[in-house]
């Protein structure tokens, strides 16, 4: 398995990358970690004529809280996310997800930006972004833009990124007291894409009433999916087992899985129900502690 011929261009700055992209046009693709794109090129599912390597652009790998916002540089690798002390202590949902993403060697070079920008509903980070209400920061021909996550995923491998845009940063509201998140996916074996995955982020007030809730689903629809109807059931309410069960049921109804090698549509709906309930409980537990 060998990619078709292409020309390689290394960009050392965002400006250079964007300029190259403008110059080379539609047949150019950015590559950061390369662990999503290069396999597709080897299978010749993708045959770009130009690759613009953005992995050498400095300053895009960081994890920090800045005021009320958690900022993660797009070129931060999955491994860096896995081992980051801040994320470990305050945002354990990342650890849940990264642990189940591919394998450690792939995680060493696969980046969070690439995982999101690829627009693949089977990737794990999109569901997290939906649950955490992320804002995607991109740099393009017309300068920087901020895209709310709800507007980001457009279709099968399609996102709000326009030609030339580079995803540079992920912004997430800083974790509040009494908030918690959790992610799990069912996979056929370790490192597999999700049969189905659910990300939950919940914020409680002092009385245990749900102030904010985000639920994102992995690989049960053509586009990474936010479970809005389920969120509405919980927002503003004290979370009870009955409500959790109701949200699980909604998740199984609203997701749009297809039967394939990972199981039938009915099976996937059923496990989405189960994982949604489990992740709600796990997120609640974390929010309460």
């Amino acid at each position, binding site marked *: 398995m060998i990619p078709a011929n*292409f020309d*390689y261009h*290394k960009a050392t700055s965002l400006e250079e990358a964007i300029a190259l992209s403008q110059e080379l046009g539609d047949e150019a693709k950015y590559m950061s970690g*390369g*662990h999503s794109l290069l396999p597709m090129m080897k299978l010749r599912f993708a045959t770009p004529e130009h690759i613009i390597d953005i992995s050498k652009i400095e300053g895009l790998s960081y994890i920090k809280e800045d005021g009320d916002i958690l900022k993660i540089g797009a070129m931060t690798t999955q*491994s860096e996310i896995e081992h980051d002390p801040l994320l470990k202590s305050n945002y354990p949902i990342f650890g849940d997800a990264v642990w189940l993403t591919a394998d*450690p*060697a792939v995680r060493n070079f696969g980046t969070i930006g690439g995982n999101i920008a690829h627009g693949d509903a089977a990737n794990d980070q999109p569901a997290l972004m939906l649950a955490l209400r992320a804002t995607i920061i991109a740099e393009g021909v017309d300068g920087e833009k901020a895209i709310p996550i709800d507007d980001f995923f457009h279709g099968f491998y399609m996102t709000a990124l326009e030609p030339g845009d580079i995803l540079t940063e992920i912004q997430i509201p800083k974790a509040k007291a009494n908030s918690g998140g959790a992610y799990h996916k069912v996979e056929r074996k370790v*490192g597999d894409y999700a049969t189905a995955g659910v990300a939950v982020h919940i914020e409680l007030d002092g009385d245990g009433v749900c102030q904010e809730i985000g639920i994102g689903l992995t690989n049960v629809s053509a586009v990474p999916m936010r479970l809005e109807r389920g969120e509405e059931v919980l927002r503003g309410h004290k979370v009870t087992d009955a409500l959790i069960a109701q949200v699980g049921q909604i998740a199984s109804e609203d997701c749009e899985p297809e039967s394939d090698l990972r199981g039938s549509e009915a099976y996937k709906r059923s496990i989405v129900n189960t994982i949604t309930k489990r992740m709600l409980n796990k997120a609640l537990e974390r929010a309460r502690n």
Partner: protein
Amino acid sequence: MAKHNITMTINGESVSAEVDSRLLLVHFIRENLDMTGTHIGCDTSSCGACTILIDGKSVKSCTYLAVRADGANITTIEGIAADGTNHPLQKAFHDQHGLHCGFCTPGMIMRSIDLLETNPNPTEEEIRWGISGNLCRCTGYNNIVKSVQQAAEEMSKEKEATV
């Protein structure tokens, strides 16, 4: 298509070459440098037979372009111990019968070096998850786990001794 001049350090030696854009790092190492200890097993970054270290981090070299390794410091199985000597992992795989056909072994060892670097004292479960991107079809993994455990112990002792 344009060629690119690249320079990198492999196993401590500087190497320069002119390569095609699409040349995969694993082929550069095997075909251009004639270092055939790094193997190809799956082409889809599923099996880990091609695992090497780039700047100390394990990577599947079948999913990495040679041209991107320009300036990198690369270590392959050939470079982890001087001729006639063993890295603790090499010794442990021998002691614990952690290999049969040997085809996955270089990748498994390179991955384990990185694993023990980030987690010097892993549990059995952490080892199993830590090598989950490396397939072995012969050993059933029991003895690979034991090998990594033995090496972890020896390497910790070595570290203590040098402190």
